Structures are given as structure tokens and as C-alpha cells.
């Protein structure tokens, strides 16, 4: 062993030792299956990280690339009988890489503009989103031009602009009040995290979430002052900023007084549920412990409180895509399916490999477009094989990617959040009555 201090002090030795290199996770790893390259497998990556931690391998460019090639989909975590916490290991590794990498001017500007400014204040993200909406509507390559002029990300933006989500006509704040009282007797008090991208790209999901909660006896708080959950900053290596956002949300929601903080985007939910571990907090009564304890995925919460089955029918076949950060990250598989199946007339047709990553993986479709496209193709084939008209997905990133897939492969499928389907069914009850 090298006597130099290890570059990854945050990863406990036991986390790495837990892997007994049996290889049982390999067939579930999309990057391994795609490449058949051991270093692109969970077992290979863990060994590389261990080697760096033990000073046997330097943080080489290839090492960094390999860590970024990982989708962080955590399918390997579900597959691992030894209980290796792969998600923690890879994320810690990425933070460590970001900490020690010399920060280039570009990255600094990116962080300053995008993280500390845009995502930290929802109003700013909404402003940008309005611009994109204008761009999408008008067909002008205005934004592209603007970025080109600025000289940042110009090549990348061309490649990814078809990926950009369709921006909602209205954002959450225009569609929902800050407080939506329960219909009937109030049994619970909950907060709704509108999400950053969800808010601007899928505001309808937020509306459905709030309305469904209210119909199921929840007073719903949607404070305007809330901000992004912090995962975007954390994944870019800025834990300090992420922590600030968590603290802010705890405050503006007055979280202590609420029964739950409801999340309808799997990525945010997984991040918040693990925030206590992510920040290595030993504290059991700080904002991290609080948010970890209160965070609930919408489908998880609805099933826990015994949501009301809708009376009206939707006559459609639905297939369900397991978002990685719901199925693997939060171990939630049956709740969203229960919601879909509770709707009369809806037939759930399971797709093969429902929990195989769709390639969205945070910003993966932007950083590794080719791999992401290969995964999307596999996913779309599986979706199409069901003959269903609707793909249900409970994560913003996945929904954007799947919607892109629907356009790319010119299919007539629609992408819907399960809670949107439930809300549609509830609405039909009224129109029938």
C-alpha cells in the first residue's frame, strides 16, 4: 500500500470490501452488456476505485471516463446479493474526482451560471424555460444562435437540441395555488416539491399530483419560494450548494409540520431519501435527517395511505417503465403498478426488461449521446413489443428521453406519469356525473 493519503477519503473501506467479485451483477449492467468490457462493469469499476483508494492506480483520464461512462442506474445494486452500496460508491467517487480536477474556466462559468444561479432559483429556470418554449414554438434557432455566439457548448447543443423536452404551456405556479386544501376531511398535511425540470417541462404532472393528493384527503402546500432539490448541484460536485437548497426547502415548506414531502420525480426522491448518507451526517435531528425521513414518492405515499380507487374507466393499454432511481434507487416497483391497475379499463402490459435503463440517466444523454441512443433503441423496442398505447414513467428524465424516443421512432405512443393517468380517471368521474 502507498503511504500517501488516499484520494477518496469519503468511501469507507468496508463499502469496497463488501464486493466479493462474484460477477452476479454483470448481466444487469447496461454498460457491460453493451461493451463486454470488464472495466465497464460494476465489479470492474469497484476494483478500479479500490485500486485508486489504495494508491495502486492514479486518477487517470481513462479512470475518470470509466466512472462517467457508468449510468449510475444502480441495476447492479438490485442484483448484488452481497448488498454492495454501489450508488454510494460511484457517487462518492465522482464527487472526489470533481473536487480534485483542476477547474477549467468553462466549468467555472458553467457552475456559476447553471448551478448557483439557474437551478438555485426556480424563477430563473422558468425564465430560461420560457426562452426555450419561445424557441420551440417559433421554430427560430434563437437559442442555438445565442449559445453559438457565446461559444459555450455549441457543438454539443446542436447534437442534443432534439432531446430538449417540450416545455409546458404553463408552469406549476401558474396552474396551482400555494395551498390546495383537501377535498373533504383533511387527513394529512403534505408538501409538493414541484421539481426544477418537472416544473417547466411537465407541469401537468404537478397539477395531477396535487389534485390527486387533495382528493385523497391531503392539504397540499406548494410554496413559491421552494427550489430544486439539490441533486443537480450535488451531481456536479457542489455539495455545499446542494446543502443550501435542502436547508432552504426545509424552511420554506416548514417541513417539521408536514406529514410528508411528496416527490413525483424519482431522481429527486432517491437523492433526498439518501441525503443523510450523501452528506455523511451523523446528526439525527438536522435538516438532512428531516428531509430523509419526510420524503415520499407520490405512488409510494398514495399506496401507504390507501388511495381511493377511481370509479370511471380509461380504456387503454399501458406499459410501465421502471425508472432506475425508483426501482433500483428506492426499491419501489409495485406502487406505481398498483396505481395503474387500480384504474378500471386499464390493462397493464408488462414490457420485457422494464427496469433496464432508458439512457436518460441524469445528463447522460447529453454527455454520452451514442450509448444513450443505443439504450433508448433497446427500450423503445421493448415498449413497442407490448402493443400498448401509453408508456407510464415516473421520472422526469425518463419521460423526456421516452418522449424523444417516441418522436425519433415515429410511434403513436404517449408518455404519461402514473399519477396523471389516475387524475384523468378521477376527472372522468365528474364528467360522467
Amino acid at each position: 500500500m502507498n503511504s500517501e493519503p488516499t484520494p477518496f477519503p469519503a468511501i469507507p473501506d468496508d463499502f469496497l470490501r463488501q464486493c466479493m467479485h462474484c460477477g452476479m451483477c454483470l448481466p444487469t449492467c447496461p454498460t457491460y452488456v453493451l461493451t463486454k468490457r470488464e472495466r465497464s462493469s460494476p465489479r470492474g469499476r469497484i476494483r478500479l476505485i479500490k485500486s485508486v483508494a489504495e494508491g495502486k492506480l492514479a486518477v487517470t483520464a481513462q479512470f475518470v471516463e470509466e466512472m462517467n461512462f457508468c449510468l449510475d442506474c444502480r441495476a447492479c445494486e438490485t442484483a448484488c446479493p452481497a448488498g454492495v452500496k454501489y450508488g454510494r460508491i460511484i457517487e462518492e467517487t465522482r464527487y472526489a474526482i470533481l473536487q480534485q480536477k483542476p477547474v477549467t474556466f468553462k466549468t467555472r462559468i458553467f457552475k456559476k451560471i447553471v448551478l448557483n444561479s439557474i437551478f438555485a432559483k426556480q424563477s430563473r429556470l422558468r425564465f430560461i424555460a420560457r426562452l426555450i418554449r419561445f424557441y420551440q414554438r417559433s421554430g427560430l434557432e434563437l437559442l442555438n444562435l445565442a449559445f453559438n455566439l457565446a461559444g459555450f457548448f455549441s457543438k454539443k447543443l446542436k447534437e442534443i437540441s432534439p432531446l430538449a423536452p417540450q416545455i409546458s404551456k404553463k408552469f406549476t405556479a401558474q396552474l396551482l395555488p400555494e395551498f390546495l386544501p383537501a377535498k373533504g376531511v383533511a387527513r394529512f398535511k403534505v408538501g409538493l416539491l414541484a421539481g426544477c425540470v418537472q416544473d417547466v417541462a411537465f407541469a401537468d404532472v404537478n397539477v395531477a399530483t396535487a389534485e390527486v393528493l387533495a382528493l385523497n384527503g391531503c392539504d397540499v402546500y406548494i410554496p413559491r419560494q421552494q427550489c430544486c432539490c439539490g441533486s443537480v448541484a450535488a451531481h456536479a460536485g457542489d455539495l455545499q450548494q446542494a446543502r443550501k437548497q435542502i436547508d432552504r426547502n426545509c424552511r420554506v415548506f416548514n417541513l417539521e409540520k408536514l406529514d410528508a414531502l411528496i416527490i413525483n420525480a424519482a431522481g429527486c426522491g432517491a437523492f433526498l431519501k439518501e441525503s443523510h448518507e450523501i452528506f455523511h451526517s451523523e446528526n439525527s435531528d438536522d435538516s438532512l435527517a428531516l428531509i430523509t425521513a419526510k420524503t415520499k414518492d407520490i405512488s409510494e405515499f398514495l399506496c401507504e395511505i390507501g388511495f381511493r380507487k377511481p370509479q370511471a374507466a380509461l380504456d387503454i393499454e399501458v406499459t410501465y417503465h421502471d425508472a432506475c432511481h425508483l426501482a433500483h434507487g428506492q426499491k419501489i416497483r409495485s406502487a406505481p403498478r398498483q396505481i395503474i391497475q387500480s384504474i378500471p379499463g386499464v390493462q397493464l402490459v408488462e414490457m420485457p426488461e422494464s427496469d433496464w435503463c432508458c439512457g436518460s440517466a441524469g445528463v447522460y444523454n447529453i454527455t454520452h449521446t451514442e450509448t444513450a441512443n443505443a439504450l433508448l433503441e433497446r427500450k423503445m423496442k421493448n415498449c413497442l413489443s407490448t402493443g400498448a398505447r401509453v408508456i407510464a414513467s415516473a421520472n422526469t428524465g425518463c419521460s423526456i428521453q421516452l418522449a424523444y424516443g417516441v418522436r425519433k421512432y415515429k410511434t403513436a405512443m404517449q408518455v404519461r406519469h402514473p399519477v396523471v393517468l389516475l387524475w384523468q380517471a378521477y376527472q372522468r368521474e365528474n364528467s360522467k356525473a
Partner: protein
Amino acid sequence: MQNRTEATAALDKIVGEKNISTAPEDLISLSYDGTPLLEQMPFCTISPQSGEEICAIVRLANELNFSIVPRGSGTGLSGGSVPAADCVVLQMQHWDKIIEIDEENMTATVEPGVITQDLHTAVEKAGLFYPPDPGSMKICTIGGNVAENSGGLRGLKYGVTSDYVMGIEAVLPDGRWVSLGNKCVKNVSGINLKDLFIGSEGILGIFTQILLKLIPKPQDQKTMLAFFDAIEDAGETVSAIIAAKIIPCTLEFLDQTTMRCVEDFTHIGLPQDAEALLLIEVDGDASITEREAQQIIETCKKYNAHEVKFAKSKEEAERLKTARRSAFTALARLKPTTILEDATVPRDKVAAMLRKIQEIARKYDLTFGTFGHAGDGNLHPTCLTDERDKGEMKRVEEAFEEIFNAALAMGGTITGEHGIGLAKKNFLAKSELPANLQLMQQIKRTLDPKNILNPGKVFDV
């Protein structure tokens, strides 16, 4: 080896730069297999694209004096694909084509990198069946299976890999390319050389193609779980079932420690208080499975099983078997180091062996989880320990030596299915007569005079 650079350059010419790597990231990630405590870096790794390339690589190795270690998926448990000093790792996992499924002759022709479960899926679509199903079948390769002569959960009734190998095409250590056996069910033309390569652990030849026998898919399965309050009772049940002339397809054993770990991972509702569990499956015609299942239940009850239950559906049966396959890795939940052994005894000695393992664990003050293919007499006593604790590691070594001795004294063997590799090399002389060992060494020396193929494995020459 003096000149790695020269070798690398020459190899690069053969396979092309896309298929060769000396990057530390690749070398580190090929420095291990599934065996604990073993690791070594190769100096280079290559992915050959054709048999001709393999022949050329082997000739080059003879010329430049480097060694070659073939590798499938690296799930081996005796260090078979752990690199030797100064070696090139020959990756075969991308040789993954199923070349032909011949329904009329009931055979499958495959490349060695085909994943065992992928073969199952493909042949079952045609109503056929390839029985060998190692616990690692989701990822291990047919090439690895043949090289280790792997067993599986269905070994009791259907035998092991060697019972299904009809032909092997291999590159020999001197660069010749042979094709042994064919689709004929009967074939006695010359010495049966094909069998020499089954279980050869990558030291006699590099497989490039394998011809496998298939059988009709059994129509019906009945899968049962029996729980016991005493380990011995489970052991006696195993012997009694076989003595009653019933051959279940699967007869697996899990002790309490293993059961708890498996439950922790799978949440399939295994009781936490039972001392032992038997997972039993009978297959065949529905009328036969019905009758045999009844007989088995009676036998279990006679030997004090406190509960016997059926899997209610095919899916549940599959879940139970998948849970059993996770046993080894699941045991790693408890301690940083998990060392598993493979001692095997004649079937009527299973209960005695189980007792012996418990006794040895107590004597050396060690934690064991034991599970295995009880119907084959093949147990996997697994020591849960910490490699950093030198004192304990010493005791582990002694305990395993005693377990091997006990197995041999019962007429058993030190390894039933994982092979000798590096891990059990020092015990081979104990288990084999001097003349046996000499014959093995002679064969190796004749085929591989320069000792370039997977050197140092199984025995020294």
C-alpha cells in the same frame, strides 16, 4: 519475460489495436476472478477475433516465452482465470454466438463465450433442454463450464457439463487446431480425446467451439421447500430420498446462516428460526412428479421436517431457485471476506459431513454458512471471516485442511465442481495417487512443453 514490449507489438499485429490493451484500467479489472484473496495483473489483454488469430497468438507465445490465460466471465472459484506471472489474458466472453440448434439431432453448436442462461433460453424456445445450470448461470460462459466441468442445481438427476459435451474444437498449446467428437451419439474412432479437455481448467487447450447434447424439455415440475429444526435431520432426509430410489432433479441444502442472508437479500419469506432448509424439485411427466412429490413429503416428515410447502406457481419456483443461486454472494453480507469450499462426499455421507463441518467450525471458533448441492454430496462450507485478521486466517486455513481430510476419509473429493486452479493446488497430491498426478503432469508436458497455457494452475510441471 524479457521483452514485454516486443510481445505486445507482435500481438498488436495479430489482433489489431482495437482488440489489445495494456492500459492499467484494463489490466486491473482482469486481475481477478470470483475467488477470494487471489489477484495478479497480466501485462496485456487481448480479445482474439478468430481461431486463426488464436493459433498465431499461441505460436507467438512459444516463440517469445510469455504465457496465456484464457478467460470466460471470470466467475471461477478456484482462480482458473486469475492471471499468471507475465501473462496475456485471452478474453473469450465476446465469442458469444449460438451457431446452431439442431432440433433433429438435438444438439447445440456454440462459441465458448455464450452465457449459459442464454443457451437455456434459446434451446427451451425449441422445446429442448440443456440441464447444467451452475449458480452463476446468468453470467458464466459455456467455455468456462466445460473447462471446470461445472455442475449445477439439476446435477442430481441430469449430471454435470461433461454429460452433455459431444464435441470440442480447441487450439492446442503448440498452435495446432483440433476438432474432437461430432454429432454421432456413438463414436469410438480412436482414443476419446474430447473428454481429456473437459475439466482441463484452461491448461490443455483453448476452446473455440463446443458441441452440446440437448434433451427434450421435461413437461412438469414440482418445487418444494422443507424446513428442519436440526441439520442432521435434513442430511438424513437427503440420503433417505435417494435410498427410496427417487431421483429429484434438484435437492439443495441451506443452513440457518445462509438462509438468513438469502432472506435479507430476497425477502421471499424464509423463516428465520429453522435450522436447515431443503429445496427439492422433481420433474418429468405430471403423473410421475405428483407421485414422487408425495413420497418426498412423507420422507421429509418422517425425518422431522416441521414444515413442507409447495411453490404455488412457476414464477414462485423460479424465485426460490434464484434465491438459492444467490446464497454464496449473499453470505458476503455478514463479513468482509467470504471463503467457500467445495468438498464432496458420497451421497450417503451427507449427514456425517454436515456434522463434521459444525464440529470443525466450533473447534476453530469460526463462523460458517453451509449450503450446497446436497443431493450430489457436494457441500459448500463457507467461512465468513476477515482477511485482515491474520490470526483468524491461520485458523481458517487449518479448518479447511481438516474439512478436506474429513471428506477424503469418507471417500470423497476436495472439489466437486469448482476445480483445483490455484486455490486447491496444494491439496491435489493428497487427493490423487502419485501415479494419477504423474500421468496428469505427463499429459500437460506432452501437449505444452513450454508451459505457456495457464501455467501454475492445477499442478506444477
